[in-house]
């Protein structure tokens, strides 16, 4: 019963809410689709926090995503132990960078008075879940090696069964509880997506990379 709730009911609830609320928010409050940047308020710590966090987490996420799409490729890649070690080591390094990043972002939000002034409870909830997510991921990677292989062979079939609408929680039943907490906190992050500033992942302005440069003048008094 608990299993059905946590690993069948909750994933669907999280996904459906994320999509529905995400669309509603986009139609009702399009300008709230933003990371609500606090770069103007504090930029020094942000460089470390945001930089490490985004570099780390985007690679780790990409790894999870590729293994979800083509688990057989991951297993084939991992067939040579050296390649497995390479993948696992890069994954761990990226995850540790993300961990440093998220901790630094949390310290910044707690200590910088200007950033503190614009911080909401939801920001803290989101940060807490992201920290939990990264921590449980690293813990699983260290204690229950080699996750890249058994994620592809055990967890991906479960995740796919969810998307195929015939959930098979039995695939992940024997996994250690730490991995299950990782899964649940990941689902919670998806659930929080439309309710928090995390929505910015859906509207990343990647076109900045190829648009023409613009000079932004912040303050006329500074110019002579």
């Amino acid at each position, binding site marked *: 019963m608990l299993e059905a709730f946590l690993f069948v009911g909750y994933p669907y609830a999280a996904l459906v809410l994320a999509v529905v609320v995400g669309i509603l928010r986009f139609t009702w409050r399009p300008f709230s689709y933003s990371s609500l940047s606090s770069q103007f308020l504090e930029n020094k710590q942000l460089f470390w926090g945001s930089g*490490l966090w985004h570099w780390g987490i985007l690679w780790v996420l990409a790894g999870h995503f590729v293994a979800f799409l083509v688990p057989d490729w991951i297993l084939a890649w991992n067939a040579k132990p050296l390649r497995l070690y390479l993948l696992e080591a890069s994954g*761990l390094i990226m995850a540790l*960078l993300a961990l440093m990043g998220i901790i630094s972002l949390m310290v910044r939000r707690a200590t910088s008075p200007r950033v503190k002034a614009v911080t909401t409870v939801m920001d803290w909830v989101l940060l807490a879940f992201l920290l939990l997510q990264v921590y449980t991921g690293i813990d699983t990677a260290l204690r229950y*090696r080699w996750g890249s292989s058994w994620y*592809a*062979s*055990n967890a991906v079939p479960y995740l796919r069964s969810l998307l195929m609408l015939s959930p098979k929680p039995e695939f992940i039943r024997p*996994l250690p509880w730490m991995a299950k907490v990782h899964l649940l906190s990941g689902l919670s992050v998806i659930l929080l997506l439309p309710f928090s500033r995390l929505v910015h992942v859906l509207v990343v302005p990647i076109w900045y990379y190829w648009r023409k440069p613009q*000079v932004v003048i912040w303050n006329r008094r500074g110019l002579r």
Partner: protein
Amino acid sequence: MPIIKFGFIDPKYIIALAPLPGDNVFLPSLKRLPHGMALSWALAISAAPAPAQEAEAQFKRSCMSCHTIGAGKKVGPDLKDLGKRRPHEWSARFITNPAGLLDGGDPIAATLLREYNGVRMPELGITPPQAEALLKYIDECTAKGVVVGKAREIRIPNVQDIRIGRELFTGERRLKNGGPSCLSCHSAQGIGGFGGGRLGPDLTGATAKFGPGLAGALETPAFPTMQGVFAKSPLVVDDKNGIDEPFWIAAYLQSLNAQPPAKRDAAYPVVGILGLAAGMLLGGRMGRKRLRGVRKNLKAQR
């Protein structure tokens, strides 16, 4: 096994919302549903395969890696005549909750554990009705003289077998059906690099524990974590082409028998921390010029 598995949706509500046969419109109408029809719909929704077939499939899935019916001992006892040896009530309790009896000081369970090298029957998540069906199936096979499974003939592995087994273990030789290599989750003495996986146990001493039945157990592994994976991509035994993956892997593990388990060093986390430091240095270097805007350069050009 009902098809609707949502924890919070009772199948009867699904029935209530389904259109009735002959209805022109979609009309939620439990009241108009004749009682008998509701029952038959409920049965249709949760239709299970015939119990006998289900029990046979379950036996193959969960039991056959370690047991035969009438073909001799494997990792565990031959289950022929089980109904005559022990009351069904005891067997059902053991099948549904092996740890309860093994740890609870049950004298029969303790004797069995000693007799079979301390190999514990794993928790297979079998429900009481499934256990009943299994026991009935075993009784039927016993009565009809049907033999299920086969105990492997004992073969002495040669150097070649052991080498292939090691390659299969580490993954250098892919398993024919594409399953993940043993190294994904298991370690063993003598694996280089960061060592083997740690999701499952170190297999260095596996042969001492499982005895000659190890190869048989690998054919259809009933270990909970492996079951789902290797049901889809089982190890290949193909006598015609001389392929016997379970035997090769067992041969490799047997060759490690007298050795101590693999050492667990900290190389992997250390590489992680070094990588973290390198990443931060690189990040700091790349971001050195971040506080110098483009404006300065543009002004210089003027």
